[in-house]
């Protein structure tokens, strides 16, 4: 049996998915990217191989993707994360969907064609607003962990209004609200709403009737719900959303 691997070297986390001939995910692994993308890629690859119980020699092809895609020394080729997320999402739900990928440092919206390719895409400009990093920093300002922030109902009626989308200014705005005595959960709800609004304006540029969510931030349930409200559409979280890019890369490696 031949195996194929996809390695997604993201700005915060590196993910690896190994699939078999039939395209079934045999194992996956994720770890922080840290300062050395190549080392993280190797480690994630080794972990995934151990998960399947095979050696590197049994992997027929490897595709690297993500922001560190050019620095996966053992990859056969590099493909952009935009194409990989389209392919990974297509595997789960088929074509005609708009994938919203919210990662550590960027946000992408990708309209998937009926062959699993990219029909159109949009990406945030140089700004961390609406990304995983933004949510991390806001959670820290609220002295919450990410799971707590994710558990907040963004629809609560007392949600605070958070106006700043610059990470640094938003942090000071949050601190200001805390000093005024606003309840942390109400501020958290405001943050989820603000991020969802920002992401939805990017996603609406592409249009579409069906939205699916991938990337690490998709695990944040509060955000996913807030995004559905902002888009006025259902938003389905893809299975193992943080691995969608790596899965797409593995599928492209299989060809």
């Amino acid at each position, binding site marked *: 049996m031949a195996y194929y691997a996809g390695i997604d070297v993201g700005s915060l986390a590196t993910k690896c998915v190994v699939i078999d001939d039939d395209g079934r995910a045999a194992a996956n692994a994720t770890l922080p990217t840290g300062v050395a993308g190549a080392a993280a890629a190797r480690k994630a690859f080794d972990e995934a191989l151990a998960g399947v119980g095979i050696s590197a020699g049994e992997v027929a092809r490897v595709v690297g993707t993500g*922001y560190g895609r050019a620095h996966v020394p053992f990859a056969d080729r590099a*493909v*952009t*994360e*935009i*194409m990989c997320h389209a392919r990974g999402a297509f595997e789960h739900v088929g074509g005609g969907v708009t994938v919203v990928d919210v990662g550590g440092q*960027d946000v992408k919206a990708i309209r998937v064609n009926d*062959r699993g*390719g*990219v029909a159109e*895409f949009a*990406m945030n*400009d*140089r700004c961390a607003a609406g990304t995983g990093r933004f949510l991390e920093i806001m959670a820290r300002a609220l002295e919450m962990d990410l799971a707590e922030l994710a558990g907040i109902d963004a629809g609560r009626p007392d949600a605070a209004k958070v106006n700043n989308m610059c990470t640094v200014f938003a942090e000071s705005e949050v601190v200001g609200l805390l000093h005024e005595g606003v309840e942390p959960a109400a501020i958290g709800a405001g943050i989820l709403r603000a991020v969802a609004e920002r992401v939805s304006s990017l996603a609406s540029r592409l249009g579409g009737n069906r939205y699916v969510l991938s990337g690490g931030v998709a695990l944040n349930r509060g955000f996913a719900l807030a995004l559905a409200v902002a888009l006025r559409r259902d938003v389905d979280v893809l299975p193992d959303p943080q691995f969608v890019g790596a899965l797409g890369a593995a599928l492209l490696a299989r060809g």
Partner: protein
Amino acid sequence: MADDWTGMWKELGLDLEKHDVLMGALGPLYLKWFTDQPNRPETMAYYDFVISQVHGLRIKELLDHKKKGGTVVGTFCLFVPEEVVVALDGVAVGLCAGADFSVPIAEAELPRNLCPLIKSFYGFKLGKICPYFESADVVVGETTCDGKKKAYELLGEIHPVYVMEVPNKKGPADRELWRAELDNFVAAMEKTTGNKLTEENLAAAVKKVNAKRRAIKRVHELRWNDPTPISGKDALLIMQISLYDDLDRFTQKTNEVADELEKRVAAGEGVFDKGTPRLMISGTPMAIPNWKVHQVVETSGAAVVAEEMCTGFRYYKNTIDEGAKTLEEMKEALLDHYMEINCACFTPNEPRLDDIDYLFKNSRARGIIHATLSFCTPYLVEAENVKKFADGRGIPMLALETDYSDGDVGRLKTRVEALLEQVSS
């Protein structure tokens, strides 16, 4: 042997320390991005030389011209009729406006959320690092955007400035406005140069500038071949250098490039392999040393084969009618020409889409990159019109907004590569 121009720069009042830092950064960048390109046309050696002398020999030529009683006119925009300047024995030069280096200097006075081209030129003047600025007897500005319009007021306090009002529409009343502006400009230039515009000198100037436009057009249209005989970066460089080099020499050298490219095309030779994905770029001008988007594209496995920009098609698309006899007829021909430039300062600006359509088809491009300088409102909004046009024809298009810094190169590369994946799939 490197010439020492320090004395000349000191006389011009340049800030030598800052100027050294700028030139120290520009040289290695140019070597890395240009001279290392494989299969480069041999005739590009001339432009390498021009760049090596960008603040040296060319400045000396300008100063020599002034010593002989000539005038140097600095410009930033295609709307300034260079034929008039040339006819009056002036030299028109595009001023420094494409480097990130001078942006922080300008930000001492200008807002951050302003187009980098404006901040760059203002910083060059404020910091005294552009010898072209310091050689220019007058800077001729224009009202193609609000940012420039207001910046010229500030600039006017530290340098002689003359501003032409470019209309915002293309109706009969707008043509009347532009006619009056042309007359005013002629009068102002006659005063500055001490020369009188005549049928003879204007006819000669029109011929010369037309020849320059035709030479650039030859080079740029030879890129329509596959494989393209010249890289997009080199074609852009030639266009950029046309804005400040000696007019007749530039025309001659550029025709020599075209001759070499014709031979290459006949032999089926190119700079990239036949079948390399081809993209066209549309949007705001790229002033030296702004080569960022071209560099990203051409290091991602694709070729730039056309530019629907001021530093490109908008400059060489049309020539001016040489059949006009009287001065009045000649001015009408100038009016015709300049009102045909499809800048986003006009509303509506639908003919720009026809230009894009024409260039896209003829250059055999497979995708469009709409590249806009940050905060350039007219082009940023017009990107949506271009997007609708591209969508309607099923053309993959990528809209980029970027400045002169290199902080977003990684992000740009991801997007450009994704566009190429779309084009190739």
